[in-house]
């Protein structure tokens, strides 16, 4: 089972570069290479700051997703903090998706207010029936990454990546689950698009 992490990176913002350094450390520790496990390869897309309509960035992401040869893709934004349980949650998600082809992806980050209630009820994975727009940390099979890439490439100018991802899964009748608790957290870093970042998971375990 091979895994690729795909990470778009605004490399000229020092805080985001530092965040990606932490991400690489976490990936090395949580996806160790050994005789039985090929570990993980991070596909990083280092870019300069983008204008709000960002067709180049969308096409870059699309091309990077299409080029992945690994069986599974972990998509992580460059401003995400990775908790100690991230690798295990990703592997659990992969096992779940391997057994149920109706699941297109599992989100390892969620900022919904209802998350703590579902977690308290013992839910490990929850399906929210709403438009998907929380794609900061996702695990998906390569085939779904391709669906996303094709939709990104044919959809200019593009709305947010995660909205397009939700549309791609919906069009293919694929479900998106949310893993609980979140094992990735949104850092409050300068945004490449000038957005204020205040979306934090309520269940994150660091």
């Amino acid at each position, binding site marked *: 089972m091979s895994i690729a992490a795909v990470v778009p990176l605004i*490399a000229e913002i020092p805080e985001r570069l530092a965040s990606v350094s932490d991400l690489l450390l976490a*990936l090395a520790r949580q996806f160790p*290479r050994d005789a039985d496990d090929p*570990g993980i390869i991070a596909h990083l897309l280092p870019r300069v700051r983008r204008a709000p309509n960002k067709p180049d960035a969308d096409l*870059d992401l699309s091309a990077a997703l299409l*080029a992945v040869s690994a069986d599974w893709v972990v998509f992580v934004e460059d401003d995400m903090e990775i908790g100690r349980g991230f690798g295990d949650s990703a592997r659990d998600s992969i096992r779940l998706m391997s057994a149920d082809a109706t699941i297109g992806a599992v989100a390892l980050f969620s900022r919904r207010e209802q998350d703590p209630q579902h977690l308290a009820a013992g839910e490990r994975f929850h399906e929210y029936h709403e438009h998907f727009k929380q794609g900061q940390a996702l695990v998906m099979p390569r085939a779904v990454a391709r669906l996303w890439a094709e939709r990104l490439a044919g959809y200019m100018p593009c709305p947010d990546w995660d909205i397009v991802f939700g549309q791609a899964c919906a069009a293919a009748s694929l479900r998106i689950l949310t893993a609980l608790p979140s094992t990735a957290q949104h850092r409050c870093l300068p945004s490449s698009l000038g957005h204020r970042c205040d979306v934090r998971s309520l269940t994150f375990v660091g």
Partner: protein
Amino acid sequence: MIWSSVVACCPAVVSSPERLASVATLLRDLGQGCPGIVVHVVPQWRPEPDPPAGRAAIAAALRSCSRPWVLYLEDDAELCSGFGALAAALLPLPDDIGALSLFSSCSRDPERLRHGVTRYEAPRPFRMAQCLLLRRELAHAWADSLDTWTGHPGSPDCALTPAADRLGLRIMVSLPSLAQHRPINSAFGNSGGAQSRTFTG
């Protein structure tokens, strides 16, 4: 835009703070100078030198490359200012050249440069894989060579020469060096830090 047809691959021992910082600098420089590039990093947690694991990581990084051109970078490489434009001007490589080294520590390089030599055949076996432009086919063949490499455990770059020979491709060195070796101890347990004498920073 040539960088859209290039993937950089970098096996990185991120358990070393100096190497992790070096990788971050590489990402910044590649992002600013090489628009469209993708960087494949194989992050490794290796507090102690482990040559077989290091070779396996290099092979995995090389094998993951699907674009026509590969920029192979060690995690302790430093790029010159203007690297993006200078390296882009070297692509595409002539048909008979499989790899072009953008780093060389040969003591005769300054003299070569004074005589106007900007490209020469690499010594055999090649062992300066600090920063290389190479064809995808050769990158994959190098990975295959690493799988069965029985040569010096600390010199995985030596496996490139037999791979190039199998494909009938040459390995060349470009002058001046566009990359420098940072003075960081080798992840293979070698005393690292061989320096280019033509790197201008």
